[in-house]
């Protein structure tokens, strides 16, 4: 046995030593092998964005089919009673978990490390694993539906596959959220305290935290339902009860946190559009944080406690969430008034998203007012639809804002103006249809495909929702059309900073080098480090 006789020397670091820059990474492998083995957050982000846009379009189309069936309540046109509920659940899961959340996470995986001045994402291989896990989970999820599974299918093996695949999707997205949160929390450039973090990165920190809190509860729900489904189907696993235990994630208030990254996209796009230093930056950060906190909805599980929607907490929360949204809009409005507004597509589309989100919050507030008798009607679906449309606008705006940085070629900016009109119009109709039907007392479709309490104006509501959903699908296709040439490396090359941006991602080339920043990242002294450099000022702003 070796005995250490003397105490090893403790190396005291020299306070004067400045560590050397780490060597540049090797050139990443190209082709399919390069994609399969990548640990580059930019490639993973692009993969997430590309695939999720395709999923989003596809599931908006299936959602439109479901809505269209409501236009003639006495007969079904495209689906049948056995499948309508299944397609509806698939559309809901598809739009949220295979479309919007991964699209935002893809944007974040690409943009957040650049915004905070980091050469990489935290846990790069975990980020890559999250993408492949999500993609394979999504494939299994869709396969489970095709095999007569889903939450209420007849093939019990495929029902089990649905639960496991859905859990896999949730865990994968949670893993990507952890990578993004950790990057914002631990990989910021010198001088960038959390009060100087760009708004999108901050919104992803808030959104990622809320998504993780929700994911844990949703996974617990899935576990309980799947265990009872496998062992006796006594209560939780009864086909009539399975789906309703999972619906809280698509309902108020949890559904609002789906659109949280929109707040950051809007903030960053507005700063670029107004071309002035953001005022009262801390208030904007606080407002985004407050919207996040007020959208916590894992407790609001009406399947277990139907009376919840009349209780004080739910009502207060539903009403209060409007306030921080107004604060954020007011702050940006003030910047628009003081600045020299340049109407970019990103600003317009994100503004449409903000208006839709505000609409969702207001409609959610009304839902919580008991005397209006909106509880458990499809009014709740209207709130969710408005929030979903807002999130779609957020993804679209993000791609118009950072598309040129992501692909290195310019994104077709004029299409963005059209996207603004289509998404805003689509979102309004998509929500209005359900709100009208809900105001008339229309109840949602039951797991057996039947509809109780057919309300007057329900068919009109379904028509509006169908048109709205179709417009949103068209808007998503337009976004794909706008970014496709850039993604295929066609069209004019983009400059490093096409907008006169104020945050660090605009200091590096478009697309960025594998190491992100070849030159040293400037010390951050305010939320607008590039503006500081241009103005030659180093004064403390915050």
């Amino acid at each position, binding site marked *: 046995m070796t005995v250490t006789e003397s105490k090893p020397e403790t190396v*005291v*670091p*020299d*306070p004067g*030593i*400045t*560590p050397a*820059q*780490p*060597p*540049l*990474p090797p050139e*990443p*492998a190209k082709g399919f092998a390069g994609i*399969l*083995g*990548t*640990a*580059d957050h930019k490639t993973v982000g692009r993969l997430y964005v590309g695939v999720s846009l395709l999923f989003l379009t596809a599931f908006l189309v299936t959602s439109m089919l479901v809505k269209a069936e409501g236009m003639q309540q006495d007969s079904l046109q495209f689906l049948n009673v056995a499948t309508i509920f299944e397609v509806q659940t698939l559309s809901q899961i598809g739009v949220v978990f295979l479309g919007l959340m991964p699209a935002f996470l893809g944007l974040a995986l690409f943009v957040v490390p650049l915004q905070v001045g*980091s*050469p*990489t994402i935290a846990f*790069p*291989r*975990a980020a*890559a*694993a999250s*993408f*492949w*896990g999500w993609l*394979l*989970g999504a*494939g*299994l999820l869709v396969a489970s539906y095709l095999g007569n599974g889903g939450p209420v299918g007849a093939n019990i*093996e*495929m029902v089990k*596959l649905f639960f*496991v*695949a859905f*859990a896999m999707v949730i865990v994968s997205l949670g893993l990507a959220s952890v990578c993004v949160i950790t990057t914002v929390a*631990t*990989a*910021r450039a*010198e001088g960038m*305290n*959390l009060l100087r973090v760009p708004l999108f990165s901050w919104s992803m920190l808030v959104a990622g*935290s809320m998504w993780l*809190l929700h994911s*844990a509860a949703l996974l617990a729900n899935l576990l309980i339902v799947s265990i009872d489904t496998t062992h006796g189907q006594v209560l939780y696993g009864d086909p009539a009860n399975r789906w309703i235990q999972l619906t809280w994630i698509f309902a108020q208030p949890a559904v609002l946190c789906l659109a949280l990254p929109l707040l950051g996209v809007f903030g960053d796009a507005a700063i670029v559009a107004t071309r002035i230093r953001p005022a009262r930056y801390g208030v904007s*950060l606080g407002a985004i944080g407050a919207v996040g*906190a007020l959208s916590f909805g*894992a*407790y609001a599980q009406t399947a*277990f*406690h139907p*009376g*919840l929607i009349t*209780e004080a907490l739910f009502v207060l929360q539903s009403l209060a969430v409007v306030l921080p949204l107004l604060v954020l809009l007011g702050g940006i409005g003030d910047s628009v008034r003081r600045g020299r507004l340049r109407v970019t597509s990103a600003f317009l589309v994100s503004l449409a998203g903000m208006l839709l989100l505000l609409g969702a919050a207001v409609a959610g507030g009304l839902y919580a007012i008991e005397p209006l008798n909106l509880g458990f009607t499809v009014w709740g679906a209207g709130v969710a639809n408005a929030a979903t449309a807002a999130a779609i606008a957020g993804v679209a705006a993000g791609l118009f804002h950072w598309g040129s940085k992501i692909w290195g070629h310019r994104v077709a900016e004029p299409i963005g103006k059209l996207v603004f009109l289509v998404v805003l119009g689509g979102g309004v109709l998509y929500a209005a249809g359900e709100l009208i039907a809900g105001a008339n007392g229309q109840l949602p479709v039951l797991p057996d495909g039947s509809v109780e309490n057919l309300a007057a104006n329900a068919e009109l509501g379904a028509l509006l929702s169908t048109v709205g959903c179709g417009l949103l699908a068209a808007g998503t296709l337009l976004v794909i059309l706008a970014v496709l040439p850039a993604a295929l490396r066609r069209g004019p090359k983009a400059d490093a900073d096409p907008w006169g941006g104020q945050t660090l991602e605009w200091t590096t080339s478009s697309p960025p080098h*594998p*190491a992100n920043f070849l030159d040293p990242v400037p010390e951050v002294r305010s939320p607008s480090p590039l503006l500081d450099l241009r103005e030659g000022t180093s004064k403390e702003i915050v």
Partner: protein
Amino acid sequence: MITTGAKFYFGLGFLLLVAAVLYGWTSGGVDWGLFPGHLGDLYFEMLGALTLGYKGAVGDHLGYGLLLGAAASSTTVGSFMVAFRDAEDKPLAEVAGLRTAPPLQRVVSSNVWATISAFAVAVIALGVAISRWFVLAGVVLLVIAALEWTIYAWADRATGDPDLNANLRDKIMNPIEIPLFGAIVAAFIALSISRLFLAIPRLSATWLFLGVAAVIFATAIGLSLLPKVPQAAMGGLLALAAIAVLVIGIVGAVNGAREFHHESEEFTVEGTGGPTELYVYGQVPTTTGASEQHGHSEEKGK
């Protein structure tokens, strides 16, 4: 000092805690009918949600528990934010005794183990629904992927030189990977070829594999005569061979084994004094006319 990140998480935690108490009071934890006549009783009812259920009811357990759990999670994250001062570079450098914090590690080397891990999890997911053999295969794959991932993660940070890091990884893993890979390839070839042997007539098998051996031998001679063989061409040739072996195995397995005619090797055992026992190849010994099928190996052992 309470940092910005900690303020967010503490604020969120506090809000969720207040929400939990409020929810506990309003979801059945307190009988509000006691107000205002029985304020003393009301006070004791309100203690339930305030004391995590120790002194009374908390209303809807699920919602109360979730809100409380979320509050605890948020507060814990906030505590980490305080402890690490929002991970700002200046405190970090101070602790490390440096003027500025070391730059972050840049992107790591490319490898497929993250993808394979995801694939392994998908196989497990499929197995949970369909067959436990898939679960087993997925777990084995996941263990291998986890080992490789761990070693890659260590090697990427071993030194500042990516080439040296790659060499270090290879020195550790190659002695494990190469024999294991060889064993897997050998098993794969043996399994595939044996399927073909079992499927085709005995004589045809002899001639076929004489032919195959001749082709391999001729190809090897041909390659040895070439001054230089491109790596891609060699890889392509081996890939084609692997696909051919795989196809052979699948075709053989699908067609099934040919009919086997076992020769009966009947003999008697003498000297027992009792009734004559009949030993038949492939059957356990019984008295005449009551034989019972049994395993091959058991028979051989007798």
